[in-house]
């Protein structure tokens, strides 16, 4: 029999890729925070889509209100910060505001999704990549390339642009998703890129998916440093 005395050494259970009804998630923000808080998570990032205006898919997403826009960004950020206060008080869980820059084209080789974690100001998805990286750097936001390789899920489209041009983009990207929901991208590990695993949460059942464990302090600065240095990072398949 093992009697648990302290949880000081336990790694932080984290998910940095979560959508709410501010874009195409099924649950409203408060319900998402409660779902993760009730399940014992230590840190999450809310990363609703910011869709580009450059493409028809992006226009449709913005028209259907499946994207945060420059007009709704302040409301979005304020709501996430309010929930962050509540989550810390209720569950001791960090909620970090973020966005998913979403550039979808009909051609998967041109499509790219990029998470910006701990964002303070609006970043337009229609900007060029260099400008987006510059804006992220200026805010000290963490930059994560999401689902960079071929996915198995039938309903998701591949987003391969960063991976196809990885030598050019790698210096600008803090971490690459090595696992997204049920998919594992072995190539990210083989290239020895900094890695992170997340759920790409859209609906409650996505809670049970790949997650990141971080051995670091429970604050945003430590978490960003840990991911950038990619030390003390582990991934886990969170199952019930």
């Amino acid at each position, binding site marked *: *029999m*093992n*009697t*648990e005395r302290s*949880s000081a050494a*336990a790694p932080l*259970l984290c998910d940095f890729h979560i959508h709410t009804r501010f874009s195409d998630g099924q649950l409203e923000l408060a*319900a998402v925070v409660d*779902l993760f*808080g*009730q*399940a*014992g998570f230590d840190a999450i990032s809310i990363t609703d889509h910011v869709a580009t205006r450059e493409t028809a898919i992006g226009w449709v997403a913005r028209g259907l209100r499946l994207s945060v826009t420059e007009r709704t960004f302040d409301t979005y950020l304020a709501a996430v910060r309010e929930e962050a206060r509540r989550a810390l008080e209720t*569950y*001791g869980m960090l909620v970090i505001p973020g966005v998913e820059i979403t550039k979808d084209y009909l051609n998967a080789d041109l499509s790219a999704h990029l998470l910006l974690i701990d964002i303070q100001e609006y970043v337009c998805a229609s900007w060029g990549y260099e400008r987006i990286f510059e804006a992220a750097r200026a805010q000290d936001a963490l930059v994560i390339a999401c689902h960079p390789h071929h996915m198995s899920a039938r309903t998701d489209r591949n987003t391969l642009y960063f991976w196809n041009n990885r030598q050019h983009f790698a210096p600008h990207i803090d971490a690459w998703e090595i696992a997204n929901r049920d998919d594992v991208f072995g190539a990210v590990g083989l290239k020895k890129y900094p890695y992170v695993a997340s759920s790409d949460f859209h609906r*409650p*059942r996505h809670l049970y998916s790949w997650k990141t464990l971080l051995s670091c302090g429970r604050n945003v600065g430590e978490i960003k440093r840990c991911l950038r240095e990619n030390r003390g990072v582990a991934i886990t398949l*969170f*199952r*019930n």
Partner: protein
Amino acid sequence: MDLSVMIVVPVVGLGIAGLLLQAVALRAALRRRGDDPVEEQAWPPVSILKPLSGLDDNLFGNLESFCRLDYPAYEIIFCLESPNDPALAVARKVRDRNPRTPVSILVSRSSEGKNPKVRNMRAGYSAARHDILLVSDSNVVVDPAYLKATVRPLLAPGVGLVTNPIRGCGGRSVGSVLENLHLNTFVAGGTAFLFGILRLPCVVGKSMLFRKSGLEQIGGLRAFRDVLAEDYVIGREFHRAGQRVVLAPHPVTNVNIYGGTKRFLSRHSRWGKLRRRLGGPRYLAELIGNPVFVAACAAAARPGSRSLALLGAAAGAAALCAAWKSRLLDARMPLPLCLLAPVKDLVIGALWFVPLVSMRVAWRGHRLHVGPDTRVVAPGSTGEWLRPRLPAFLRTRTA
């Protein structure tokens, strides 16, 4: 008048009367008062055992609610079988955030016993410091007044065990709405009916308070290690030993938010199998007590305005009783959702037949075979006759 009408109308009428009687019994159970007041220093210390296995909806809130009880002296023991259980992180967080409440977390794996919940509780049972034990499932949330309201009846002479009514709250998916409806109608009403009208103990393990010394007199926890419906059987054995089993007038809340329809079907097919093993021929009464299903079968067999009117009356009575019971329990279930009660009754009616075919249950990752008195038995010794004769594709669907 046609013979089938002469049979169906009284059976449906009996079922409707049963639903009304359940609601009346529930009302009486929730309004029961009369226990003597207890002075603050006279409350006995309590050990709360919480067996954990996996994540339930609202788990953090469920566990933390036990740290906020208005009770002078108690300890909480979270029991887990695996250090990899996702509930461990939640239990740690609850303990760390409530340093003033004595919370222990025990992780131990025992091979003794076939009931996973009893096996999980054994280390906590041995480690409990107080004679009064509260066994409480991980999927219930309580308010601060709960423990006093539950301990108070135990202090009366002759009382051996106290249990509580259950209400379901929080449904956001079809499965969880059906689950909550069933808890608020059949489970809460049926428990109150058995306790209040038939004077039979019907203990549901979501909340069981008893003295450890009392349990030891009927064999201790080890006597129930292979019994799947250990809650009901423990209550029955207390009753047989001459100790009163009481339903406290304070409900506990089972929060079901996102559970799917598959989970609802699996849970109630499992509970049905346990009730069939415990009830024997009395299990038939459940079908008679489901007037919606009986009327629907009659309407399907002989469609017509009379049979449809009978079905409408049964459905109306079921919806009304669901609304009434939910209100009595303060389950905060929106009225339009109570209109789904007849649909739920149809599903439950169909599930009634599953235990006639199969005695296998799936429970939190365990596959078990239910034998007499709900003892877990080896595959092939459950006395099933029909299931082995079914085609393979049907056999897998009845497990």
